[in-house]
């Protein structure tokens, strides 16, 4: 059975299963969502209006036995940034959608205000159903309801109250194998899903399977690929300490944004570090290792229990811990875990929301270090949609605007994540030039600036940083098209067998003869397609700049400023 486009029109509540247009056939994941958004969404449309479209696409390798191929890409015009947006997540949805022979879901139009629906997808079938029971419910309550309503192990893609309220920081949650949530976090895509009146999508592949053109070659390529991934020391460290292993090394480098980006080191770093988290997980009978989808050989997620040894949160990431921790000066890992859990339940981006809290702290709304205050605001204000809650849920830029704060760490109105661009200059180029607004995952220069992976460059020097970010952003756009987790990149940068094995996997899946050059060209095409959309939406090179305070406020301990000229930044696009 060939893959199809599942088109869902929420204006007249009709569905269609269409052939894949020839120009889209070679694409998957981010390459496909960006191609569809660029082709079908008017760049000047309102992100929450009927002309925006929500595009959901598994990657080229999703649904196969390829290790770590469980990422799902979700795209639209972003209500937070006004740019094109692709945000990807783990969970089981990508694998199950691929087994439904679904190349992409396109949700378009808009229903009557106040009407809510769910969407069911299975091989050769898609339906729109009126939804009432889960409306207004958090992700955890929704998951419980769906567990009882559906037989088997379907996948779910859902929004929480933040998405229903169309907050610009709302995310889209994807169920993992244990009915817990992974998030397509950035850029407010949950608000777009909410604007379409869709509470959740259920995915049941029945006995659907992904066909492999050359099964033997596929098996061999996967063997090499798994070996490269599993043997890499960084993969092993991720299994033990999770992504939070980064707190201490980024702090040591002086690039850990602290107290709303006024300091580069956090006094309480040890208390929120990956090392401390690992010890605590062990003491409380949690699990340091947990996979967000079947077939992951890295397992960077974990089960973090509370002081009573009861489950509190999973997928407890460095970014969230940094944002609630160092950026808001909270040094209590349990309070951060509580906030993480509330945000997962509300379905709101833990980076955007936490950085917004940091800006609110600077404005005096609450004290730096007030972890209980953060949890109260999340629960009683954001969760209930009060004025204050909607303000925080509008993101860091919104909070800065309303309270008259000049130090607002955003690019294209999206909050800057966990690395200060003054002390780690390579990541600043990525923040500035990314087609998505500030986003570390678009070109993870930290690998080479800090971690000595894929070579090393001086994080305080400008030399080589533009070229580094360019190469990483091109490679990342291609990897984001495969359905692969970005954490394969550490092995790919270091182990020369890894990337060829990945290309062999794609070739064996489809019976193709792609080369490394084809993959690079794919990455370039994606970036240029996204940039063209943004330009048509009104963005120019002046938007590829960091906030002014990075250039005029020195960051301790190295006392450095952001010193790239506009011309130097713009040379990123010379390809």
């Amino acid at each position, binding site marked *: 059975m060939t893959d199809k486009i599942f088109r869902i029109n929420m204006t007249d509540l009709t569905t269609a299963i269409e052939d894949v247009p020839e120009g889209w056939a070679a694409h998957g994941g981010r390459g496909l969502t960006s191609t569809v958004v660029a082709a079908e969404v008017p760049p000047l449309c309102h992100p929450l209006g009927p002309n925006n479209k929500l595009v959901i696409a598994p990657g080229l390798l999703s649904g196969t036995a390829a290790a770590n191929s469980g990422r799902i890409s979700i795209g639209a015009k972003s209500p937070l940034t006004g740019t094109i947006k692709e945000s990807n997540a783990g969970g089981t949805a990508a694998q199950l959608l691929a087994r439904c022979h679904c190349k992409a879901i396109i949700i378009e139009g808009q229903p009557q205000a106040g009407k809510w629906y769910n969407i069911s997808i299975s091989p050769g079938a898609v339906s729109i159903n009126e939804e009432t029971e889960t409306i207004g419910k958090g992700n955890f309550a929704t998951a419980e309801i769906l567990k009882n309503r559906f037989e088997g192990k379907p996948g779910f893609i859902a929004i929480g109250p933040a998405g229903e309220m169309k907050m610009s920081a709302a995310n889209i949650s994807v169920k993992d194998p244990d009915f817990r949530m992974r998030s397509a976090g950035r850029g407010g895509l949950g608000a777009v899903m909410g604007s379409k009146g869709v509470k959740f999508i259920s995915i049941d592949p029945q006995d659907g399977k992904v066909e492999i053109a050359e099964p033997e070659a596929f098996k061999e390529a996967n063997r090499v690929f798994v070996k490269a991934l599993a043997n890499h020391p960084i993969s092993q460290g991720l299994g033990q300490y999770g992504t939070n292993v*980064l707190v201490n*090394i980024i702090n040591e*480098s002086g690039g850990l944004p602290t107290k709303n980006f006024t300091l580069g080191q956090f006094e309480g770093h040890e208390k929120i570090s990956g090392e401390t988290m690992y010890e605590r997980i062990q003491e409380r009978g949690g699990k340091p290792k947990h996979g967000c989808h079947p077939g992951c050989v890295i397992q960077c997620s974990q089960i973090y229990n509370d002081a009573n040894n009861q489950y509190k949160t999973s997928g407890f990431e460095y970014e969230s811990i940094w944002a609630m921790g160092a950026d808001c000066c909270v040094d209590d890992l349990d309070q951060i875990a509580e906030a993480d859990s509330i945000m997962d339940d509300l379905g709101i981006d833990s980076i955007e929301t936490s950085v917004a809290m940091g800006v609110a702290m600077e404005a005096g709304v609450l004290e730096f270090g007030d972890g209980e205050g953060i949890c109260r605001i999340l629960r009683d204000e954001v969760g209930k949609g009060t004025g204050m809650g909607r303000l925080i849920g509008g993101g860091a830029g919104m909070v800065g605007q309303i309270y008259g704060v000049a130090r607002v760490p955003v690019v294209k109105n999206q909050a800057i994540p966990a690395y200060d661009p003054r002390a780690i200059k390579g990541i600043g180029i990525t923040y500035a030039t990314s087609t998505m607004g500030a986003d570390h995952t678009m070109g993870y220069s930290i690998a080479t600036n800090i*971690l000595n*992976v894929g070579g090393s460059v001086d994080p305080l020097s400008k030399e080589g940083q533009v070229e580094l970010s360019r190469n990483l952003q091109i490679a990342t756009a291609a990897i984001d098209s495969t359905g692969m987790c970005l954490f394969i990149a550490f092995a790919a940068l270091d182990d020369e067998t890894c990337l060829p094995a990945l290309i062999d996997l794609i070739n064996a899946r489809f019976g193709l003869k792609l080369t490394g050059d084809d993959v690079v060209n794919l990455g370039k095409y994606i970036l240029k397609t996204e940039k063209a959309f943004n330009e048509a939406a009104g963005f120019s090179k002046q938007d590829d700049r960091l906030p002014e305070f990075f250039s005029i406020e020195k960051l301790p301990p*190295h006392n450095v400023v952001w010193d790239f000229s506009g011309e130097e930044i713009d040379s990123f696009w010379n390809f």
Partner: protein
Amino acid sequence: MNVEVKLFAYFRDNRFKVKNFTFEEAVPVSHVLDHLGINADEVGVTMVNGRHCRLDTHLQPDDSLGIFPMIGGG
């Protein structure tokens, strides 16, 4: 001379988090690794006073040395 040594991730196992050492003369980072029984092949990053350094970098009085295995995240 006094040097502060900080260990991270699994390098702490059966060793320490942070400890002060006294050396009679300026020693290279590799000397500290040998002293602690850390295999240089396992080292991902070393930093002196928050700046990356090489294994042949000589430590100065009151330096703070951080030693990390190969780690990553994001």
